[in-house]
């Protein structure tokens, strides 16, 4: 059943990307899990993936505010102490689901990095072999420094040049990807990226049982 929890803070990273911190109230989850967060009317809801570690004291979400959207602008406007309606956790995408010793590669666009942050904040001793992280502008790469502390991170910035990033789409970096039949590939974010990477991996002979996907945003958004 749905719960109501209190907002601890809304922390802005850019003019569109923010972190929503909620009181945990003992809520258990595993990295990759989501909850549905509700708009003010208690009716409209959207799923958001936990970005916090499974043992952290608070719940954290990394969210892009979509202008004109039903839920993300509402969550962005919340003040400390406000109430948010939250569903029980659920999920069908679990970074690391293939097992503790299975080598993994993470590929994310935008706020699609959230479940991987949750994973790294929970299992910091079991990092992936590498992470490809694609954003529009360099400032959107809010998790780049954290990721670089944990694993070999390749950043792609599509709309501008940046000294520490490849200028172009994340899919241009695919030839740099470590490929081996035992590696599990976890993809999250924009669905167009997910479809292209899946097709590419299959062309390279990777079995689909080693490809794990979560679509946050559809190509038209």
């Amino acid at each position, binding site marked *: 059943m*749905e719960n109501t929890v209190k907002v601890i803070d809304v922390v802005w990273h850019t003019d569109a990307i923010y972190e929503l911190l909620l009181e945990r109230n003992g809520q258990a989850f595993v990295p990759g899990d989501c909850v549905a967060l509700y708009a003010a009317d208690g009716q409209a809801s959207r*799923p958001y993936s936990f970005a916090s570690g499974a043992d952290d004291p608070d719940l954290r979400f990394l969210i892009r505010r979509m202008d004109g959207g039903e839920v993300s602008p509402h969550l962005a406007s919340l003040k400390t102490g406000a109430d948010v309606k939250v569903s*029980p956790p*659920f999920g*069908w995408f679990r970074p690391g689901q293939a097992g503790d010793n299975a080598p993994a590669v993470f590929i994310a666009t935008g706020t699609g990095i959230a479940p991987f942050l949750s994973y790294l904040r929970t299992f910091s001793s079991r990092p992936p072999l590498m992470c490809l992280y694609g954003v529009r502008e360099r400032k959107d790469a809010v998790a780049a420094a954290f990721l670089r502390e944990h694993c070999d991170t390749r950043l792609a910035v599509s709309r501008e040049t940046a000294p520490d990033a490849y200028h172009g789409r994340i899919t241009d970096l695919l030839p740099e990807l470590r490929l081996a039949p035992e590696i599990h590939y976890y993809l999250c974010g924009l669905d167009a990226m997910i479809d292209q990477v899946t097709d590419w991996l299959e062309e390279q002979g990777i079995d*689909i049982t080693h490809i794990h996907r979560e679509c946050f945003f559809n190509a038209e958004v």
Partner: protein
Amino acid sequence: MTTDTIEFRQSNPWLETAKGEKRGYIQPAKLTELWFHTGTICNLRCPFCLEGSKPGDTRIQALKLDDVRPFIEEALDLGVEQFSFTGGEPFVVKDFIKILQLALTHRPCLVLTNGTEPLFNRFADVVPLLDLPHPVRFRISIDYPDEQRHDAGRGPGNFRRAWATMKRLHDAGFTVSVARQRDKDEDVNAADEQFRDLMEAHGIPRDRTIVSFPDFLTPGSTGHAPEITESCMTTYHTEETRADFMCNYSKMVLKKNGRMRVYACTLVDDDERYDLGGTLSDSMNARIVLTHHRCFSCFAYGASCSEK
């Protein structure tokens, strides 16, 4: 079942139409198929969803293995021939693979799925189901043969993903079928033929089953279907066609407010008057009065979730 529900079943609006005629009914004969509603949680939130399913939804709660086990045992005692699963999206439910494994040790199964990420991500657990004593068939929802029209409801890219999943299931050795939406006044054969062309284009045999449904409206909608009287059931139906009503040979089990309940069929779970009790044996004798607006679809078009 509440006392209110029992009283209502004996009342006039339940048993008689607005004009005072006796309502049509089905007196269930057997239990050949048992449906499980795995919950209204889904990864998609299609605006037309007859269950109102969406991410995080709990109107009908997600099933756990221990919820299902007693109903499987009871259904076997009652002679059930098949277990079927619908949602929501069954593959979102954590225990679903375990539930299927249990069901497949006893009877063939049918699973309705949207064929997107939740199934894709569990493919490694799905393939070994082929080794269990009974087969599982998958029915994938592809609303329209037109990609844009399908994706307008289910989200961009999902047409392509659903076909890719269907092909993967077929290649792995599973029997697949399609659930599509039926337009008013459509030419059924012509519409099916478009799907058969798509099957062929995706490397799936043309002869797979296609099940089509009219618009059932969202949960709680009243609809404006004509009332079905007892004489309608004898004038327009025969003993043989009455036997084909889903509520004659099947039931649906689901979890609401933390309690497992048995409903008359897959289409009426938004109406408590069709809650027939907490066990299958309790539910078997209940007469199913055809008052729900979706009953009219069964009456007029033979809508059935089964592949009988």
